[in-house]
């Protein structure tokens, strides 16, 4: 192993790729010794760490800047490994190393805020992540105590309903675009789906409100179902866009083989195209759910605000978790402000966990139904 595998991640290139990579090494002249990458990274971190340490000691900053060290150290590493490889291994391999390190850097940089976010939510959310939170609503609760059950139920029902509306419509539309679509209608849909993604969420809420107020003649209409409709306006374009992308990637050979065997087109789509791309489709749907489950602005307008339980999607106000988080945070005042803020963070944590569970379920389902092939 005297090849590119000295970069940390390269050792793991699976299967034939690794073989090919190893063989590729035969053509190159000099090699950086194994572990150079790790050593360079450690050195870079040390150097920047030292710099920040001096800054700290000189009193230019309050406290040692760990995030800064990792960030600037990693950037320094990118430059260092590229220069090293350029000197020893030549231009092509230097570029390869540079890209490898840049890709890894991108990952580290992106991870920093994400880790920080999750840590913040966990740290603040665990305070009220207790049984009471999941068995109580906020009815007649003053100050501390209470829970978010009414909001959890509302979020599950409204998002579930939005999914029931959006997924069939979105999936069928993307099937139309990929399998049937020709001409103006298809072009129009592709184009306007992108436009639809730019509808600000609050406008979707106002629209759904105006639509149902007009349709029912009730100017004060508030219900979970209207909320689900407004979420669908936001969700459908995401479903269409991601499904379309995934369906397009299904190799035409599969379709042609099926059609050649005399299978009608609709069965080809149902039995060949969809199962082949199910993993990607599920990811897309999960993304779409994730996109809307945290929406605050439209639900604030159309699903309303209540402290009590409401299981009925079609009548009366219904609380949802994002609205709950928002109002608990903005209404945190006076004696028990901290209790409200704690409830808000616990709500955020709950929301993330709900999506996590849905995601897991989606993955299991995708695995069960996906054909066994490929990676």
């Amino acid at each position: 192993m005297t090849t590119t595998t000295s970069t940390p991640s390269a050792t793991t290139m699976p299967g034939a790729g690794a073989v090919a990579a190893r063989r590729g090494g035969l053509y190159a002249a000099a090699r950086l010794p194994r572990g150079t990458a790790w050593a360079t990274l450690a050195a870079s971190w040390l150097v920047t760490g030292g710099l920040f340490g001096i800054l700290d000691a000189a009193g230019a900053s309050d406290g040692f800047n760990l995030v800064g060290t990792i960030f600037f150290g990693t950037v320094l590493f990118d430059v260092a490994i590229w220069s090293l490889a350029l000197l020893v291994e030549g231009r092509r391999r230097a570029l390869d190393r540079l890209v490898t390190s840049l890709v890894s850097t991108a990952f580290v940089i992106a991870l920093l805020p994400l880790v920080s976010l999750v840590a913040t939510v966990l740290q603040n959310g665990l305070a009220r992540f207790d049984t009471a939170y999941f068995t109580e609503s906020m009815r007649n609760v003053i100050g501390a105590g209470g829970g978010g059950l009414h909001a959890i139920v509302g979020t599950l029902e409204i998002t579930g309903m939005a999914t029931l509306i959006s997924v069939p419509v979105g999936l069928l539309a993307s099937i139309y675009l990929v399998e049937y679509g020709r001409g103006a209608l298809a072009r129009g849909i592709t184009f306007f789906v992108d436009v639809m993604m730019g509808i600000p969420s609050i406008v979707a809420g106002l629209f759904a409100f105006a639509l149902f107020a007009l349709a029912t003649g009730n100017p004060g209409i508030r219900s979970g179902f209207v909320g689900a409709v407004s979420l669908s306006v936001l969700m459908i374009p995401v479903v269409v866009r991601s499904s379309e992308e995934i369906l397009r990637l299904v190799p035409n050979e599969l379709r042609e083989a099926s059609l050649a065997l005399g299978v009608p087109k609709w069965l080809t789509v149902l039995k060949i195209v969809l199962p082949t791309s199910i993993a990607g489709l599920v990811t897309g749907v999960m993304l779409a759910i994730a996109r809307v489950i945290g929406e605050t602005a439209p639900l604030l307008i159309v699903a309303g605000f209540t402290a009590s339980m409401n299981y009925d999607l079609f009548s009366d106000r219904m609380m949802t978790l994002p609205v709950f988080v928002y109002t608990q945070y903005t209404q945190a005042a006076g004696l028990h402000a901290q209790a409200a803020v704690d409830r808000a963070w616990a709500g955020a944590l709950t929301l993330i966990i709900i999506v996590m569970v849905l995601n897991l379920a989606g993955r299991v389902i995708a695995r069960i139904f996906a054909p066994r092939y490929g990676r």
Partner: protein
Amino acid sequence: MTFTRFTASARITAPVAALAIATIALSGCAANERGTGAADAAPASALKGTLSAVGSSAQGAAETVWAAGFQTDNPDVTVNYDPQGSGAGRKSFISGAADFAGSDAALSDDELGGDFALCTPGSGAIDLPVYISPIAVAYNVDGVSDLRLDADTIAGIFKGSITRWNDKALTALNPDAKLPDAAITVVHRSDDSGTTQNFTEYLAANAKSVWDAPASQTFPYQVGDAAKGTSGVADATKSASNSITYVDESGSAGLSIAQLKVGDAFVTINAKGAAAVVAASPLKSGRADHDLAVDIDRTITDADAWPLVLVSYVIACQQYKDSAKADLVKAYAGYLATDAAQQASAEQTGSAPLSAELATKVQAAAASIK
């Protein structure tokens, strides 16, 4: 659409539905909502139904307290107060989308001249002051905890003409404080708000020479940082050093509050002084008998008076088309003016209880709702 049954979508949505159903089946109902009233028997109240209101976020926290109290007294009633904002509240009430509105501003003459969807035509709507909150000038400066300010200095800071903490105007008022040689970070509301309206009203009345913008619910100058909502300005002020903001007192936890020069004395923020200013102010003229819109006198200089105050109203019909609704609103509005309700909100949210005289007027007005 029946074909979707065979597609991936149905499989994906299944767990969503299953999870929702599971939650519902398992929980049945929230633990705190299970009929405690049934065991106690003797229903204390015959009132029944749901009151839906939209309105001011300033009185949102207090409404939570009041709704809880009212629902405890009347177990079959649900009060939903949606703290979207005063403007949204008045709009909703006018269009009939809310049974009553909470608003930091009384109905304008234009609005009073129009129609109210829920009221019998011609009967009009009334403003009931139910929530009084002192507004604090709160700051975050290391080592300074007893800042004293007068209206002109506050106006100068928030207009941007006083930019450093060791400005002459500030050191003259605070000879003993160790004011840092640092820039002042002004934090104000980025959203339109009743708090800004009352704050600018106070400055426009008391610092005429400096504050040349009219009172408005939008912060008029481009100075410093803007943040959303009470909690937003409070958080921004807490996270930035050498910063200052104006905020409802209930949201000022963790910040120091400046003393205000009223007349010739420096006054520490106090709820009584705020209530006293409202009590001493005249009602707006030319309104219906039971309309209690207050024309706050910002120049009152009584001892301990705190003229930087916000009054928030409940806006209801004088006469509802639906008599059941009228009974509910009447009972709820009457409850808000009771001593119990005012004390509860004072305890929980730091509001100023209505003076006895005003409370009596509000109760009389509430009783007149038909």
